[in-house]
Every structure is written in structure tokens, then in C-alpha cells.
């Protein structure tokens, strides 16, 4: 224990949020743990502890595609499209 499970959304549907539950949620305690509360090797967490480093950040060079804009009438547009495709 504990058993660790990852699930997909198909597992179930979340229950309905009743007004009562919403009201009660404002009073519910939320436990927060930071690295101060956990017994962690500080050299192994955060940016400093990451084995991977980002060396460059950039906008990808766009391959310029020649875009054929079809006629505004849908029937003509489809007709033109189909004549161009195999």
C-alpha cells in the first residue's frame, strides 16, 4: 500500500455539485505540504535538481505552405477541391 492508479475520464462521471456540498466546501480544511514538510534531498528537487535543462526557447520556423483558398460558394468550393485531389 498505497496502490497507485492512473485513470481515464471514461472511468465514471463526477457527481452533481449540490448547493449543500458547495456551501460546505468553503469550510473544509485543505492540507498543504511544501518541501519543508517532506523529507526530501534538496539537491534533487526543483530547477537545480532537474537532470534536464532547457537550452533554447524559440519560435518554430514556419514551413510556408501554398494555400489555395476555395470559392466562397460551398458547392463550387467542393467541386474545385475534388477536381484538384486525386
Amino acid at each position, binding site marked *: 500500500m498505497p496502490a497507485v492508479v492512473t485513470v481515464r475520464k471514461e472511468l465514471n462521471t463526477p457527481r452533481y455539485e449540490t448547493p449543500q456540498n458547495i456551501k460546505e466546501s468553503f469550510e473544509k480544511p485543505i492540507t498543504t505540504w511544501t518541501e519543508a514538510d517532506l523529507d526530501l534531498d534538496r539537491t534533487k528537487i526543483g530547477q537545480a535538481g532537474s537532470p534536464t535543462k532547457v537550452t533554447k526557447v524559440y*519560435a518554430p520556423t514556419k514551413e510556408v505552405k501554398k494555400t489555395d483558398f476555395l470559392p466562397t460558394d460551398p458547392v463550387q468550393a467542393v467541386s474545385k477541391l475534388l477536381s484538384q485531389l486525386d
Partner: protein
Amino acid sequence: MDNNEIWVYIETTGSRVEPTSLQLITKAKAIASGKKVVAILLETPSANFETIVKEYGPDRIETLIDDHFVNATDEEIADALFQVTDKNRPNSLLFPATILGKSIAPRLQAKLETGLTGDSLDIFYENDLLVQVKPTYGDNVMCDIVSPDTRPQMVTVRPNTFRAEKATNPQTEVVKARFTFHKQADSDIIATDPIINSSSKLDDAKVVIALGRGAYSPKNIQLAQDLAAKLSGMVGVSRPLTDEAEFNHDDQIGIGGASLSADLLINLGISGAVQYTVGIKNAKKIVSVNIDKDAPIFEESDFAYVGDVTDFLNALTAQVR
């Protein structure tokens, strides 16, 4: 720091070798410049996947053979891989970004205490450093990522990012790797139930009709499905539509979903965010329909229709044989 080799994990399911692994062998050979390309293959004694792997010309195939691999858990596989990579660390270790690959790679990464980039779009070497390219979350921006101080440099790569090419290599060595299968005490596969993995089918579909938020309506879904059936194609969606009841993650195109290799892709009501368009780079002909003439998707398209999706679908349905 390492043995100057690029290792590729060969994923197998049943009697099939995952094509992405073969694509990674080809890519590794292309960027190796002097490094040896090694395929790592886990199989039962009666399986003979190395005959398929050999066709792609790696320098060496390391086989890990055990009866348990008919049905090993992800942890057992990661443990076996750890045994053969820990003492003699490869320079790089490439995994397909499939469901299995993305489960095993991080487990192995944690054991090896090294770096891993997931869903990389491209990889290349700068000397011995493997540069791993991926988009940042939520931005039309790319990052180059490296693991400067740890080995192996690990990466998962999405299906159809690269092409597999057969290559004869009479020098390919097949070597049985030494390891011990460690049966995992705390979990067991008790049953497996084959389902049609429609995400990998979306990767392979020759014709794809893709729906985005701008096209989401019962009418358009019906028209798209009918059209896909007529064209022997499949319907895919952009990520937002996977939150709707009619679709799920298997229908998704883009980051975290399918990478298309379709001959024809028709985008309907899709704006063209980079998280989507990374999944369509290898589609041959792209037709896009959007009511917004400035939608970024048009820059990725061969044909553009600025107008109503339903009108376009009706016209297309009427004219397609």
C-alpha cells in the same frame, strides 16, 4: 560517462513490433555519426522478433529472453531494462511515446536517476549531447532540452514523427543480454482483454475527418462520420472535444494524441493551435474549413475554405462518390 551507443527500446505487442520503435532505429542511424545503434528486445524464447528488427539495420540487437515476457508488468520490464543499462550506460535511450513506452520510460528514468523528455518532436546531436526538441505547454514556442550531466539521455518520441526505412546491414550482431527476471511481488497481470486501439488506427488512417470546437454539433458529427465511412476513413478530434460525451482520448489528434500519416486530412472548425498541428505534420494533403479567415490552421493547409462547416460538409457529401 557512457559507452557511446544509442539504444532503442523495441516494443512488441502479441506478434507485432511497434512501428515507432523501427522508426527510431532509422532515426538513430541517421544522426548517429559514429555511435553504435543498438536495439533492446525483450521476448519469450519462442519469439523471434530480431528477424524483423534486423531488417532496419541496427549495429547490434540485445535480446533479453524469458518466458515471463509473454505477460510482464511495466515494472518488471523497467527492472529488466535497468539491469542491462545501469552498469554500462548508453549515451542515449529512445522509447516510443506509446502507452507502454510512456509507462516504462519514466520508471527506468527514476531508477537510472537521469533525464527524460517526453513526446519529443525531433532529436539531433551536438557532439555527445542529444538535443531534444519539444513545444512548451500552451505556447507556439519550441524548446531545446538536454541532459548535460547524466546518462543515458532518455527521450520518448511520438509515432509517425519519423519514417522507418529498411536497411541491410550484414554486420548486425545479435547478442543475448545477461539479466535475471525479477517477478514483482506487489502486482500481477491477472487478465488481458484486447480492445481495438483506435488511437494507433488514427495514426495509420489514410483519410481523416477532424472536428474542432468550431464544428461541434450533432449534425456535423453525423455528417463527418458518414463522410468518413464513405471515404474509408476515420473521424478524429482536437483535444477540447475529447471532453465531450461523443469522443474520448483515443480520438484525439495532436500532443498527447495521434500523429497522422494520412493522405487526406479535412479539418473542420479547428483553429490550428500548435498542440494540434504537431499531429498533422505528416498528412499529405490538408483541407481546412473555418469561419475565421485568420485561423492559423490555414497556414498548414493546402486548401482553405472560409465559411460554414455544415454547408461545406453537405456539399462534400453530395459530390463525393
